[in-house]
């Protein structure tokens, strides 16, 4: 295998979540994190899962990643059931989860070393390619603690992209960043998604962020975690988070989210 073939875009995966349920035991009893959730995600689709905390959206992401197992139901990735983590589905977490004992380049190399078929120098070329893609080729030898929050997430993105996955799973990756850095990353992630052709599942509690990034925005409600609504966003790309069109769309979805929370409280009141 050569660097060129390694860097070729792989076909993005189709994901199919079928009737997935998940319960957690806590001190206050059993929590129904997910209740028979079904969701189809097309090849190369950018889908955002939105909802208040405790609605199970991160749990669903973990199940798709194979880090967690469903109590009932199944997740299919290109028709094959997901039974554990796999290189075709890479995850980006809210905390960057970069390894402090390795420098930037070695962090990106970590996943590549576990991928068979590449020589040492090829792996380094591949890692450099992705560091360049996220604009950090000058920071290869930096230590993790020397980077800003936004740069750390860029390295985490490069690390997730490096094994050339078909699916990218992102769990509130920008939640801990300042607004300006976040806006830059919205631009980057859209560009990279279009260049690298991935299926992206993006979890967030920020409706505007979801509308800015997603082809679809899926609304979750908590206790038990269920999908309530599914919005198609057909705004032209690249999208600007500050545009009026986008604001209108997100106002519409925010309203739906509020309604949903209110009706839920009514249900509880009854």
């Amino acid at each position, binding site marked *: 295998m050569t660097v060129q073939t390694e860097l070729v875009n792989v076909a993005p995966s189709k994901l199919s979540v079928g009737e997935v349920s998940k319960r957690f035991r806590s001190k206050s009893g059993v929590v129904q994190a997910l209740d028979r959730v079904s969701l189809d995600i097309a090849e190369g689709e950018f889908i955002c899962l939105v909802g208040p905390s405790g609605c199970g959206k991160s749990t669903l992401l973990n199940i798709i990643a194979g880090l967690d197992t469903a109590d009932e139901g199944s997740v299919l990735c290109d028709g094959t059931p997901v039974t554990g983590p796999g290189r075709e589905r890479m995850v980006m977490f809210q905390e960057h989860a970069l390894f402090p004992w390795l420098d930037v380049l070695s962090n990106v190399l970590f*996943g590549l070393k576990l991928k068979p078929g590449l020589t040492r120098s090829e792996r380094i070329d591949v890692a450099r390619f992705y560091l360049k893609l996220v604009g950090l080729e000058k920071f290869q030898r930096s230590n993790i603690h020397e980077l800003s929050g936004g740069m750390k997430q860029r390295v985490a993105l490069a690390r997730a992209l490096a094994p050339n996955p078909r699916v990218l799973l992102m769990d509130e990756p920008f939640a801990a960043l300042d607004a300006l850095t976040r806006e830059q990353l919205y631009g980057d992630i859209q560009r990279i998604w279009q260049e690298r052709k991935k299926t992206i599942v993006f979890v967030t509690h920020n409706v505007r962020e979801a509308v800015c990034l997603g082809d679809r925005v899926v609304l979750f409600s908590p206790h038990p975690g269920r999908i309530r609504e599914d919005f198609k966003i057909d705004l032209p790309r690249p999208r600007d988070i500050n545009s009026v069109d986008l604001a209108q769309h997100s106002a519409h979805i925010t309203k739906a989210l509020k309604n949903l929370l209110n009706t839920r409280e009514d249900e509880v009141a009854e």
Partner: protein
Amino acid sequence: MKRFIYATAFFAVLIVTWEMLVRARVWSPIVLPSPSMVGEYLIAAVADGSLFEASVVTLKRLMLGYLFGIALGLPIGLITARFQVCKDTIGMLALGLQTLPSVCWVPLALLWFGQTESAMFFVVVMGTLWSVVIATETGVRTIPPIYARAARTMGSRGIHTWIHVMLPASLPFVVSGMKQGWAFAWRSLMAAEIYVTILTGFGLGHLLHYGRELHAMEQVTGVMLIIVMIGLLADKVMFSPWERFLHRRWGTQGK
């Protein structure tokens, strides 16, 4: 540079004061010899090779036992961190034995092994082992779970995760445990050498012991000085590079 000048000045003043106090007959040289007398002894002992020989014997014992203690302690620490049942059993044992001053192993070692190198080896291993076990276990238990999860998504499993994630992630703890183990091993070996006369090698502790027997205070002081030097040197050579690496990578404070 400024720090170096301060340090040199400090020790120069210390030694000069000491020399002057002895020369002024504030106390008898039999109680505490002057630095120049200690110096004379050291020069003579270096010249006839006895000091070097004793240092080699002692350091060989120390390194052998210490490395063995680490080689044994690291895996035991990892296992106690991994399995709760090991934590409740071996972990408890390690904790208990670590609180035991390592010199307390000397009588036992004597009865088990007699006046042999094995007794020395045993004492040093016991001094090292438990500190390393406990530090490794603590280190692994304080690793944020996100590291292992991230590694799993990238295809790391089992042994690979332990070697490439858990071990390096717990390095700050492991290094401080190794340092503590070193200190315990060094102390216990000195105690053992002072208490136990063995024919297979004449270490620094023995030199110290016979200095006392012969009332050669300049020998006692000189050997103590060498023991301090070796301790300092070990710190600079063995641990400083690691600590510098950790501070640099983790971004923690350190000078």
